[in-house]
């Protein structure tokens, strides 16, 4: 790793921390959400600098979409979305401080006490291919099952959350066409 990469890595790491602290100190829910987004974008940058550009850019891509959608729900459900009154995001301060302190010490100890293996093979030029192989070659079955579980969870959650069923849409004999929907869709089902 060259000097530029090291400087970039340190800067992104520090920025990720700073935005992470801001998440808990800002008052506005919109600002909190986008601080968290900025922190995660820095994490994506760290991942890219560490030699995994695919994962790094995908983290940025996914986190932007996810946090913007999350902003909608955060503002819909949280108190004080616009930060017009002071608020605190901290709960269970002593317990949280103890837990995070222990986890931090354990992780730092891990850095120094784990016997890291030396690199035997040469570094691959394009790690994207290696990531793809690692996920899709030996672990193909895992990924396929995981995909189905995620899809089933999403469909199941949507079905549980909606209060309207097919009898509401198509009538008692399921013969009402077009369906009676509160908002008409684009394909006229």
């Amino acid at each position, binding site marked *: 790793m060259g000097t530029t990469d090291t400087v970039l890595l340190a800067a992104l790491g520090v920025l990720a921390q700073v935005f992470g602290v801001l998440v808990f100190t800002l008052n506005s829910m919109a600002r909190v959400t986008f601080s968290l987004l900025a922190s995660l974008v820095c994490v994506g940058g760290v991942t890219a600098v560490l030699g995994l550009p695919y994962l790094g850019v995908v983290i940025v*891509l996914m986190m932007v979409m996810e946090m913007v959608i999350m902003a*909608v729900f955060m503002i819909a459900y949280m108190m004080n979305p*616009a930060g017009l009154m002071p608020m605190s995001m901290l709960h269970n301060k002593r317990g949280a401080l103890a837990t995070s302190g222990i986890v931090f010490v354990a992780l730092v100890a891990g850095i120094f006490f784990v016997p890291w293996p030396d690199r035997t093979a040469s570094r691959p030029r394009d790690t994207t291919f290696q990531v793809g192989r690692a996920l899709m070659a030996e672990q193909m079955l895992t990924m396929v099952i995981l995909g189905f579980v995620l899809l089933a969870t999403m469909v199941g959650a949507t079905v549980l959350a909606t209060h309207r069923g097919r009898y509401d849409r198509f009538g008692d004999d399921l013969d009402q066409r077009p369906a009676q929907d509160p908002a008409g869709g684009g394909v006229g089902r």
Partner: protein
Amino acid sequence: MVEAGAWWTLLAAPGLLVVLAALAVAGNAVLDARDAGRPVGVAGAVRPFLGVPRALVAQPRRLPAQDRLLWRTGVVTVPVAAVLSTLVVPFGGRVVADPSVGVVWFNAMEVLTWAGLWLAGWGPNAAFSLIGGYRFLAQGLAYELPLMFALISAATGAESLRVGDIAAAQDGLWYAVWMPVAFAAYLAGVLAFSFLGPFAYPAGRDLAGGVLGEVSGADRLLLQAGRWLWLASGAAMAVPLFLGGGAGPGLPSWAWSLVKTLLVLGLLVWVLRRLPVVRADRYVEFAWVVLIPLTIAQALVPALVNLGR
């Protein structure tokens, strides 16, 4: 192959993008003049640019309890992301950077528009503006997945996420020819992330301008420029992804890139004037019920072709 990393490309790429976006604005203005029965000429073409100096010196609008930081961040994000996206778009045989994940980079920059527009809607503390921001998210949930599958189709065809490789892999047969669904979904996505024409819903006239409702002066200029910069950037990216990049007989590769980009840009400007605005609730259902299955089936085609090779 494309050559990456020359220092002057860092200046040339944004410059070219601005010129292309200005051409699109001028073309749109000429068509406006024709439709309005005014004489078609230079005067009609430069008409939208006459507002630029006025916008630059205009006093920025201030609103009670606005979130100025987030508002400015959002307004600046849209054009900046458009410029950043072109860093991986080859023009002829030249590109600013040709990373191994160029397609994902373009997509990530495009998604930054989601954040930018929502923030631009949230910042001014105004209802119509905020609804405009939410409208873009609803629209985003509809256009993004077909667009991603279109990008994946091209990347699968070339077995690479490097934009230069994708352009080089279309030796002889353009992806637009044997992946027409992906090409169409991509072009629809371009119009959607530049929120123009049928996808102008977030800035709709029925919403007093939506996300553009409260911005004034330089902010308004930046946000409007962002739309056309994104249109130009999307048109430029269509060339290496689906139209064989700078390859072509006779002319040098930069000339072919320019010709193809201008044709795609012209097509987009023509289309965005022909179609009415689509409401997001309608487009979401169309996207999820029709477009996503179609684009997934489209992505299967290059996968099977590559397996059979």
